[in-house]
């Protein structure tokens, strides 16, 4: 986001493979709540005549998950971490027409 690129080492296992974890900086989280614009809703409705993959939804969810990850990375970056381990994702239907995408992990300093 905001033009800056933060590069962090990320993994969903207990450590960063090939690196040593020096210290842990606690839980970092990122979340985003998204709703879809009505035009795409109509197209997804048309797609539901045949079923299968709903590309409009897939795109939207990918986009929003990337944003949630970006927020988590910014959180970790603000704490001075250079890696996040044990990342988990969660999706929940918070309201009609909106979904929350949430991701969390442990910020660590690795060398």
């Amino acid at each position, binding site marked *: 986001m905001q033009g800056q690129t933060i590069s962090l080492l990320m*993994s969903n*296992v207990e450590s960063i493979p090939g690196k040593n974890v020096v210290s842990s900086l606690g839980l970092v989280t990122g979340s985003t709540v998204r709703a879809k614009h*009505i035009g795409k809703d109509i197209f997804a409705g048309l797609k*539901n005549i045949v*079923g*299968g993959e709903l590309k409009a939804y897939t795109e939207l969810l990918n986009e929003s*998950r990337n944003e949630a990850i970006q927020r988590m990375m910014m959180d970790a970056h603000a704490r001075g971490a250079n890696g996040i381990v044990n990342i988990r994702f969660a999706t929940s239907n918070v309201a*009609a027409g909106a979904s929350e995408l949430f991701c969390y992990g442990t910020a660590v300093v690795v060398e």
Partner: protein
Amino acid sequence: MSESTMIILYIIASIVVPLSFPFISWALGRWYQAGITSKLMENEKILGSILDDKMSVTTSNKVSMIGAEYSTLLHVSLCVGPSMGQMFFMWLKSIFGGRLHSYDVVLDFGRREALLRLKQQAAERGCTSIVNIRIETSVVSFAKTQKSKQASVEFLAFATGIR
């Protein structure tokens, strides 16, 4: 004479078309989903077998990570749903219970496609193995009204890719 036949035809059409919609949608859904499933199986043959040779894919997180020079988080999400006609027949079927074949097919397709895309993503980034694969399933609905609520299922597959 011709006007009255037109009216009769119109009445018949206005009854038959809405009634036949579930059948049409069901048939179209079966046909379309058979198409995408066979395409997926082709891709699995082409890409899956190539990847399986050089890639070790595991759900375990206890692997030897000594010598790993690069690791990255991989995540793929995919949204699938059955067709409206299939949903209508599944609603009928659910009165008696039993196996809902249409849902089986759709969910199986979604999960396999998600795993395949995960492998593709790993191959793009030059990973040689994928560890700690997790697959999550959740119901997403962005429909604005309760009436148009469509059952779409999201599959999220995430893993760590190692080179």
